[in-house]
Structure formats: C-alpha cells, structure tokens
C-alpha cells in the first residue's frame, strides 16, 4: 500500500492527484495503476517521467510500506 501523488500534466490526465493504492513494490503499483487506467500507465512509463519514493528520486524497483509516498514527476519546467 502506498500514497500515490501525481504532478503536472499527469494529474490532469488521470483526473486525480492523490490516491492510496494497494501494492507491495513499485512494479506492482505501476501494474495496478495501468490496469485501472491504461493511458495513465503508459504516461507514467514514458521517458522523462521520474519517480520519487518518500521524496527521493529512485530508478528501478522499490518496496513499499503502507506509509510510503510515491510521486510521479513529469519533466520539470522550472519556475
């Protein structure tokens, strides 16, 4: 289980920005999100989209606890 945050155009596309999802690791989380919304699943896997687990960028796999925060970050635009 994890708290999932979407930013920028990802939140617009999904129609939500903050949701709790049942998953034990990042890849099953991606799978659950893609099953519920295939378009979103594709967008989350696109090049340039980074993942932060508890506010640190991770590349590859990560295990999730019920209190883990997973954020999907589209390319940053600067301020």
């Amino acid at each position: 289980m994890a708290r999932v945050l979407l930013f920028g155009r990802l939140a617009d596309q999904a129609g939500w920005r903050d949701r709790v999802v049942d998953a034990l690791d990042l890849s099953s989380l991606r799978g659950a999100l893609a099953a519920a919304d295939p378009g979103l699943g594709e967008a989350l896997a696109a090049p340039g989209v980074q993942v932060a687990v508890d506010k640190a960028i991770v590349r590859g796999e990560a295990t999730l606890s019920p209190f883990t925060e997973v954020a999907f970050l589209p390319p940053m635009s600067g301020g």
Partner: protein
Amino acid sequence: MTVTLTDQPFEPGALVTAFCVGREETGAVATFVGLARAEKGQAVALELEAYPGFTDAAIGEIVQGAVTRFQLHDVQVVHRVGRIAPGEAIVFVATAAGHRREAFEACDFLMDYLKSRAPFWKKEHGLGGARWIEPTDRDRTDAERWD
C-alpha cells in the same frame, strides 16, 4: 539562508529591506525579481505546482552549493506557487557577498537553475486555453553555462 515556497502574493521590496539590514561586511547585494508578464493581454494567469518537501529541499541543496562556490554571506529564495496574475512576482532571489562579482554570479546561477531545472510544473493560462510548459532551449543553454 532561507528557501520559501508560498501561495500568497509577496512584496519584493520588503524582502530587500529585511535582507540588507545589519550587514557589516557585505559590500554587495544582488537581487532578481521575476514577474508574470501579461504578454499583451494574451496571458491570463500562470499556475505553478511544487512538491512541498521535495521542491524546497532540491532548491536548498543548490543554494548550499552556491554559498560554497561563490563564498556568499547569505542567500534568500522566495518562490510563488499556485495561480499567479500578470504583474505579480513569481520569484525573488537575493545574494549577499563581500564584492559584487560573486553576488551577481551567484544570483545569475541560482536563477538559471530555478528557471530551468528546479522541480516545478508550470501551466500557462491564456485566452486560448491552458498548456503545460517545458524549459526553453535558452533556459537549458543558460543553465549549462555553470556545468
């Protein structure tokens, strides 16, 4: 050294006043204020999204690097988030140093970072609708000057 994200309008002059007070060995304070442009009526608003706890931490790390690199006495960064109307301040950076070259270069460096690499997501609301923005080529080139 302070980094602040705020969803409320702020007044850059008041920040300059406070930043300059009580400096005995600072010869140079450089500041930059980024304002939202009206684009001749085409721009309705700018919307900036940050990831609290992540965005400010990322900026804080760059600020720390600038303090060391440019031997700064102090730095302040204030960044608006949320919906910003034309004419309002988006970003304020102030740098204090012994001499002007360091203060100018640090301010320039921090702005290049903030405008091109800092973790914000920017949406422009115009007369024809809204669109998400990515950094311009010039933003990338500017930021690469420091690598």
